[in-house]
């Protein structure tokens, strides 16, 4: 909760700094603020379930996910200074919107009331709609914003409809009361409760880009400014999956039979769609968009099989996924900045000219593939174990086949980097970029070697 307040204050501060045209002070203030938020968040670890009446509960689960999201945001902001260096104005709008989106994400991990869930999603989504279109004079960016907004509002509609049906069936927005009613009433709940459940699921699936509700993702990821895409595919996804877990695995667990089969299908369809369509991509951002779709499917596996390992599997997976994705997007930003293009061919011969960047990209993609000893392997392994523990053997086998397919497209950039000839000159890399690339690479490796750091839930 303190973290949430800190971030709101930082966001407001950023806006005022913008009014004072204090461009230089802005990023230091944001970093300090986020660092404070990160620490105050961790201080709430093991404080028990601190409840804010009927609205929010801060428990270890939300602290852990908030930690991952704040950390990810810091990583994204580390790229921001260079990404926006050619723009003169202070950019308080973009930065503060990103921070507000983070507030929404934090609400999504700690809601105890369906209205809070809705508010959290909306804070997050509306900020993201604007951010997707923040390259005002770019056609693709405008298209991305509009597409994201239209499909997103549909999803919100579904979610809201679902929530109201659940309210109708159970008589409360409070999740503890709802769980109580579900356990007591069980099968005597009216039919439209099931409809509400399904609609809520669909609404959340939209936000997570779960197939068959993923159609917005490639265009939006491609059109948005790359920095925002990185933010969208990490923080938003982490928040979405945390909310999904909290709602379904924690509170609707008693009616698992009603939703687990549907989710099973969502999960496998997502993994296969993301990976198979990913094979045909020539653009790095679209490739990572499909990769991110497929990873949503892997994440859902831990919710299909709800057990003691699930929460931790999700935590490890979203951390490993976020760090690798930001590393990949960060390198795309640098390459695009120099070569004005983000097709895979742009990376030809990068291995010769920029060895550190190439190594970073390789590590990121290998981690996303799930090759040991990188973080992605530990995370995937954990997810598969979770699913296997509840006997979802076929889900695991299909997911593993999906991994093989994904290796094919994750290797396209690696092949381009190391084995294809490029005629581009070396890309000058600033010290801060280099630091961030090395930092992310090392974290990916360390998290793979020591996954127990995050095995805390």
């Amino acid at each position, binding site marked *: 909760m303190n973290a949430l307040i800190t971030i709101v204050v930082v966001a407001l501060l950023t806006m005022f700094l913008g009014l004072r045209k204090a461009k230089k002070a802005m990023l230091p203030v944001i970093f300090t603020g986020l660092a404070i938020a990160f620490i105050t968040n961790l201080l709430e670890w093991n404080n028990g379930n601190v409840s804010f009446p009927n609205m929010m509960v801060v428990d270890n689960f939300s602290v852990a996910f908030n930690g991952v999201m704040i950390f990810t945001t810091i990583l994204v902001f580390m790229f921001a200074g260079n990404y926006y260096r050619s723009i003169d104005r202070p950019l308080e709008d973009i930065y503060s919107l990103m921070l507000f989106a983070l507030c929404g994400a934090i609400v999504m991990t700690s809601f105890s009331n369906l209205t809070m869930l809705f508010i959290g999603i909306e804070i997050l989504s509306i900020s993201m709609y604007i951010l997707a279109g923040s390259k005002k004079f770019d056609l693709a960016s405008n298209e991305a914003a509009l597409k994201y907004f239209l499909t997103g509002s549909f999803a919100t509609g579904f979610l809201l409809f679902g929530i109201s049906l659940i309210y109708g069936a159970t008589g409360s927005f409070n999740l503890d009361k709802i769980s109580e009613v579900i356990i007591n009433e069980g099968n005597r709940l009216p039919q439209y409760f099931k409809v509400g459940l399904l609609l809520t699921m669909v609404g959340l699936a939209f936000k997570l880009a779960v197939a068959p509700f993923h159609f917005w993702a490639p265009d939006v990821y491609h059109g948005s400014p790359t920095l925002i895409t990185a933010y969208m595919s990490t923080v938003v996804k982490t928040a979405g999956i945390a909310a999904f877990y909290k709602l379904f695995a924690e509170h609707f667990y008693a009616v698992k039979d009603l939703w687990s089969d549907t989710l099973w299908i969502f999960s496998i369809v997502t993994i296969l769609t993301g990976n198979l369509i990913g094979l045909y991509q020539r653009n790095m951002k679209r490739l990572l968009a499909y990769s991110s779709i497929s990873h949503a499917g892997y994440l859902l596996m831990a919710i299909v099989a709800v057990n003691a390992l699930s929460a931790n599997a999700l935590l490890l997976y979203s951390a490993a996924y976020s760090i690798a994705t930001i590393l990949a997007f960060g390198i795309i930003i640098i390459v695009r900045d120099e070569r004005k293009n983000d097709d895979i061919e742009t990376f030809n011969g990068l291995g010769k000219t920029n060895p550190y960047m190439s190594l970073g990209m390789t590590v990121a993609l*290998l981690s996303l593939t799930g090759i040991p000893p990188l973080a992605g392997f530990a995370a995937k392994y954990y997810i*598969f174990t979770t699913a296997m523990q509840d006997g979802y053997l076929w889900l695991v086998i299909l997911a593993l086949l999906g991994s093989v397919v994904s290796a094919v497209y994750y290797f396209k950039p690696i092949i381009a980097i190391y084995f294809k000839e490029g005629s581009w000159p070396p890309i000058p890399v600033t010290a801060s970029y280099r630091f961030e690339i090395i930092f992310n690479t090392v974290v990916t490796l360390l998290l793979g070697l020591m996954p127990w750091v995050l095995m805390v839930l």
Partner: protein
Amino acid sequence: MITGILIISPLLASILIMMQKKNTNIRLIALISSILIFIFSIIALITFKNSAYPETLMTIPWMSSLGIDFRFAFDGISLMLILLTTFLIPIIILASYTVNRSKLHLFYGLIFLMEMALIGVFSSQDLLVFYLFWELTLIPAYFITAAWGGENRIKITFKFFIYTLFGSLVMLAAIIFIYFKTPLPHSFSFDSVFTAHLTSVEQIWIFSAFFLAFAIKIPIFPFHTWQPDTYTVAPPAGSMLLAGLMLKMGIYGIIRFILPMCSLVLDKLALPAIILSVTGIIYASIIALRQNDLKKLIAYVSIVHVGLMAAGSFVLNISTLQGVILQMISHGINVVGLFIVIDIIERRFNTRQISDLGGLVHKMPLFSILFMIILLGSIALPLTNGFAGEFLIFLGLFKFNPWLTAIAGLTIIFGAIYMLWMYQRVMLGKINENLDFSKSVLKWYELAALIPVAVLVIFIGVFPSLFLRISEPAINLIIYTINAISIG
């Protein structure tokens, strides 16, 4: 202690080499560290008590709550393969000691990474850690073949990568499945993995999954399609790593995992597996006869030899399994020797087409002798290293199924034909006039690589029992456990 040193030292060597800038230093550091690691493994051999059980256990806790820990130890089988690895790496480094390559530091760094992964695979006592290292070998193998390989390498090596990744991911599913069948608390340690309660239906699935992974790696027919192209296109050192060491992981896996874990269904499934292996033997022999490219020829010959080993490894019999272990060592040495020979020829005459060569014996007598020794080892002449192993395997196969043995036995005839015929066309006869013999004298490093190989070919052939003794207790233990399971 020694286990830890054996695993860490290649990693340290790899990091040290990758940080070097000057090419001359890199070669020397690589050579010295590879020899040092070989000495470490000799120390391991000297201190080895050979008690059938894994010795010098080293445990580093990892994800202990999930029952995964880094456990390393070695019994006779592991030690034999570790010795093979640490012996071949210096040979491989020597074989192309002065060859100019781009990014030399990465090349040698990857070789040492590979060495670490291989030692990890052979000495791991935890199923998931085994998988970890198994997968880790793929990365250096892929990059070595793809970065320093020949024509069309990108497509070919990518096929190799995806193929093997597919196999290993299927195995991962099986590994996780087994984990939940282990006695509580679930663990991946070999002790609990081998006591997992699996019904015979489950064992069929486990068998299939592991067999697929190992069959792709070895490769067994019909999963071999990646192999000839990859061996051909890889740089010489890459072919040596793949053929000499990496495929041994598959056979090691069969003996280590499939036999004890699927003992209930072994009598049913061993036959199809052996039939596949024997089919591969015949198939590859026939294709080998028609090859004009020396490297491709050796690639197919390799399929023949590993097919025989794979067939033997499914026969539950002490002497057969002993033969397989010995044959793994011999094959590793012979195939590396043959690749060195091809490399020497290619470097001198810029060709490895048999039809372009001829009469080398007149100008390169010493080379011809060394080549002949390695060749004879490869066709398993008595008193060379190939003989004892192949003989033991055939003996066991004969008890299992005489007809299959008769068919597989054709390989001896075929082997003599394609190898000797190749030798005849390359080394004997009239000197091919297009060849330039100006640089035909062998360099010191080529001799340093070839002579130990040739010496070992004869030494193992004359004293096979010295080597058989190392692995015997461990093999005995495996057979004993399997019999105990099927009785009790």
